[in-house]
């Protein structure tokens, strides 16, 4: 850890603040192909059911199209495509999580939305180096949940790949 980080810790301890490890952060859990992912809840603007999406010809493959969210135009991102996974079979319902990135709204199309979890920072682990490079790229780390593992999504990085 950098010196600045240590100093910060020290300052906090003196100020009687909670130890980082016991601090809790809220995540919205989402499911894609059976895998759990977490998005910091503060970054989530909206959760939507399947929406009508206008295709945008000539757009990058992971761009599913554009959609209307209460008068704002939102770019829909097919997260399965972004992660190099197969699309869901035709007719199966999807859901969307709307996030903001650099003042623009993006709707991340995923399979399903789960609960909001409050997790202790001490259960947070760095991304294993052996993970697939695309996944490693979009993950900030892994949470050890009781039953399963949850990959924390780095939203800016998820969108970075597509944004020019």
């Amino acid at each position, binding site marked *: 850890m950098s010196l600045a980080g240590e100093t910060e810790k020290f300052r906090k301890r003196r100020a009687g603040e909670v130890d980082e490890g016991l601090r809790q952060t809220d995540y919205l859990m989402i499911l894609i192909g059976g895998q759990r992912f977490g998005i910091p809840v503060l970054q989530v603007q909206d959760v939507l059911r399947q929406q*009508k999406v*206008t*295709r*945008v*010809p*000539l*757009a*990058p493959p992971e*761009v599913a*199209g*554009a*959609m*209307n969210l209460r*008068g704002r*135009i939102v*770019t829909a991102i097919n997260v399965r495509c972004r992660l190099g996974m197969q699309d869901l079979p035709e007719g199966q319902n999807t859901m969307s999580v709307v996030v903001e990135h*650099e003042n*623009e709204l*993006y709707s991340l199309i995923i399979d399903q939305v789960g609960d909001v979890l409050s997790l202790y920072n001490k259960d947070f682990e760095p991304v294993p180096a052996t993970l697939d490079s695309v996944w490693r790229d979009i993950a900030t780390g892994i949470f050890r949940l009781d039953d399963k593992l949850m990959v924390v999504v780095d939203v800016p990085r998820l*969108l*970075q*790949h*597509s*944004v*020019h």
Partner: protein
Amino acid sequence: MDDLIVEFLTETNESLAAIDVQLVDLEQNPNDANILGSIFRLMHTIKGTCGFLGLPRLETVAHRAENVMGRFRDGTLQVTTDYVTLIFESIDRIKYIVGELEANGKEPDGSDAELIEKLDAVYEGRDSAQAGAAPAPTAAAPEAAAALDPLQALWDSLPSPDDPIAAALNAPPLPPMSEDEKKEAAVPAAAAAAPKPVAAVPKADEDHTARESNVANQTLRVNVDVLENLMTMVSELVLTRNQLLQIARSAKENEFATPLQRLNHVVSDLQEGVMKTRMQPIGAAWSKLPRIIRDLSMEVHKKIDLVMVGQETELDRQVLELIKDPLTHMVRNSGDHGIELPADRVAAGKPETGKIILRAFHEGGHIIIEIKDDGKGLNTPRIREKILEKGLASTEEVEAMTDRQVQQYIFAAGFSTAEKVTSISGRGVGMDVVRTNIEKIGGTIDLHSEMGKGSTFTIKIPLTLAIVSALIVECAGERYAIPQLAVQELVLGSETGTANRIESINGTPVFRLRDRLLPLITLQKLLKLPDVIKEETDQDKRRSNSASNNRYIVVTEVGGYTFGIIVDRVFDTEEIVVKPVARILSDIELFSGNTILGDGTVIMILDPGGIAKATGEISVAQTADKEEDQAALVREGARTSLLLFYATGEAPRAVPLSLVARLEDVDVSKIEHSNDQMLIQYRNSLMPLIKFDPSLELASEGTQPTLVFSDGTRSMGLMVREIIDIVEDNINVQINSDRNGFLGSTIIHGRATDIIDVGYHLKTAYKDWFKDHGDEDFDREDMKRLRRVLVVDDSPFFRNMLSPLLSVAGYDVKTAENPLRALEMQEKGEHFDIIISDIEMPEMNGFEFAEKVKHSDCAWKNTPMVALTSHATQHDIERGQQVGFTKHVAKFDRDTLLSTLSQTLAEQRQERKSA
């Protein structure tokens, strides 16, 4: 900045623009008292406000200029071209000071002594033109003094000895009293019940003032942001209304119908009203033109009359801003290329004075601007030659072209037929930029020219950008919008019939439209959409056999090029609110935006310009000819080589070439990642790579253009999207410090170009560099204390460039904008290891500064000094050494500067050790 100052700046800028126009008028009608009076008032207001706000420099200049104008007004001085030029000079100085004030919040340093002396000479009748003539002012003075004598007593009793008027009254010999000063003098007199002077004030003038203040009371200054915000909200409201109407239409009868109808009307009125608030008369964009034409005609010795018609025509201020520069450029062009020299005109049987007519008017939701000159017109044969010369078309093609088609080539980049490049135009970087700018706002530009008779340019632009009317079409099951402005007509073509048949040449569809062959583009193919029409056609066939063979052709015109777009279906036209596409989609040239339709669906707006470009037909505008630009650009004095590149988006960026060590194409597959940092093995060591912008997408394979910056043994690569060119240009930067990584912006090739801050990017790379490589380069002493460097340079650009550069090289940098400020630091007891100083600076130059520093009383006398110059002659270097500069380094030569610094410091250390 102080609110008062902000308000003052806004007002002053408006007044200055007005003065420019009026002075040109005045020169033509020297005896027009009204014009004189209003110019005088403007100057007077500036002067008065300055005094109030404590801006002495501005006040002095305005005051002296006002003196001279006062004499014009009193009729004691004839208005001549020389005097008007002098007043222009004063106005330019005022503009400059105001500009600085706006940028830095304070008046710039410097002196106006020379200008003031000139003004005073004219005022006091000491200038060459008046010296022989009767000394009018002194003759008039006693009279004025006598007339005001009774007031003198009043003045003396008034507690305002600092008042300029009182001072003027007491100072012999007495200058002539200006009308305004008399009026001012009259006011206190009136207060003391002396009614006579009040009656002397011209009645017309009084009425005029009263009318003016009335107008002032009816207007209100509103921040543009507020209006923009309002406009956005109205746009949303229009969308919502459209949605409601759509629902109501499908629901047939319901009780919402009537209120909805009313809502519909109110929203329409509201939209119109809000649009009006954004409207400005086009005259605002024209105010500079009379002055430009006047200066131009003086410079090239032509006689030009500029006639402006329809100044009151209003258009959206956003549009206005965007067409300001293209218009200026075109009017200048007309004057420079179009109008002939007086002798040539007479020889051609035309009046000696050329005429440029600028006309603006509304026509069906658009505004038309015409620039017409009665000059020599375009030299079509010469353009044909030039097309061949530049290889833009083959001989056969050129021969087949009509004159009109040939003329369109003047909009090609780098295309200039002017034999001689003047400082005004002829650099071949103009008309293409004009066209690009106009097309950017959805406008079109057309040209009609007849040799020997003159040229007419016609610009057609939409009234507003936010809401446009668009034709909704369908292709492969999706709807798209095409801006109505580009659509000429709709034609129904058929695939099988005999009439209106779509024919094909080698698979490319074409259509005979009124005896001309119209090239066709199939939207579905262009957008690479799946062929879903097949299934639909089958269905259609079952329903109706004839319909399936019909194809809708949208005849579109972009910049004189007409083509047809084949679509599946055509709906109606709709008013749509253009919203910019998300950044991720902004690279797709075929779309100019997107919008939400009445039924809530998002649809993409097609960009006809982009479509034309994609089909390759309009490439004329894109063929750049750099040679000519270069030749033109090299001519002028102190220039800097700049490397232009694209990083993200369409805005070009620039970096001084001397800062770039090398240009490399980095093989993407060789890029390694370590610790969040991209690295590449480069010349046997690891070089960090930085994306110019985090959002820059790297090529997935192949190579990525990279600028390599080197700093001693360390290098870093800055990856960009595309390297465009190297140009030489003056860097005239408007510093803007609020964006990291940019020094500011400048105009290159008529485009706003950001100059990047290399230091910022070096810093980004170096943080990691130090972590990875340790500190082996630093010796003990350097580790203990950073070397302190003082940079003295009056140019903010250089200060901003040098300080990050030096800090990255491990120095602790302080800057001073002039030697006086540096000497203040010395008095405060600051200490530096080395001083880098510019030579040419206002107030105190580098040599004088060095003399001061090296003086035996100075605490800095042992501090080594390095001179930084843009041009060092042997004489300069000798003089520099005499006054105490250790070394001379050329500006921009950073390697030498850094090595000189370390060398000088090492020498000094050595000396100290041996001492």
